[in-house]
């Protein structure tokens, strides 16, 4: 049997509350975000109740993110955008904050310093 490289994507979905008491869906990504992550990422996204209008993306446990993975993040943001959901992000390393800004992604999700700031950043 030949060796299959282990690329493992995980999403854990948590609930938080915004200042006005409205629910926030927190998607905690971990492991690798690559071209093979589509099903796991959209599976996590689908776990958030349809009525939740606020999302937080937690990248703090992501070990590896490449351009195909960033393309999937763009697709998640497109889905959120269409459903009129706002997305705050945190936990990106300085390197990946720079990369997100290079491709313009910060126009569609604010890059926040930490989870508390991200959850407090929704203005309704």
């Amino acid at each position: 049997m030949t060796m299959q490289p282990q690329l493992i994507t995980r999403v854990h979905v948590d609930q938080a509350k915004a200042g006005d008491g409205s629910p926030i869906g927190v998607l905690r990504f971990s492991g690798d975000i690559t071209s093979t992550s589509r099903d796991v990422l959209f599976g996590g996204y689908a776990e958030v109740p349809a009525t939740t209008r606020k999302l937080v993306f937690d990248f703090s446990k992501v070990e590896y993110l490449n351009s195909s993975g960033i393309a999937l993040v763009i697709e998640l943001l497109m889905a959120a955008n269409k459903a009129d959901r706002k997305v705050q992000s945190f936990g990106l390393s300085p390197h990946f904050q720079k990369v997100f800004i290079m491709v313009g992604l910060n126009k569609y999700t604010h890059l926040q310093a930490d989870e508390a700031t991200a959850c407090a950043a929704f203005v309704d």
Partner: protein
Amino acid sequence: MVQDIPSTVELRLPSKLGFEKVAMQTAAGVARLMGFPDERVDDLKTAVAEACINAIEHGNRFDERLSIGIVLSMEDGELEVKILDSGSGPHKKVHAPDIDRKMHGDEEARGMGMFLMQALVDEAEWTQTPLGGGCVRLMIRLDKEEE
């Protein structure tokens, strides 16, 4: 004088996605040995990963009988990394992503690899090997203060 031989590190990887991570580690090891700061090492790692993914996917079309080559040459505070495949290189030019067009579905979400390579390193150039294979040449330089 043996002192004049430039230092070269060569790596050969299978054409399977995931192995670009090995190239990232190798390139990081070489860059750290040369004294590059963490920030530049991160830039190089992402650029090398994108180049390897393209070599595996577009150059060698996932053909597991083919391998990709990475040649790292160190000289005078410059690190040149060549990523080689058995294809014929990209026919497109580097194109900066338009996030608004992507968000509105007017442009594919993908297609940011070459742009990132060029944005992250000091030089990125697409050529062909003498035998007609695909070749990307990346280069990072130590700043004077870092040396």
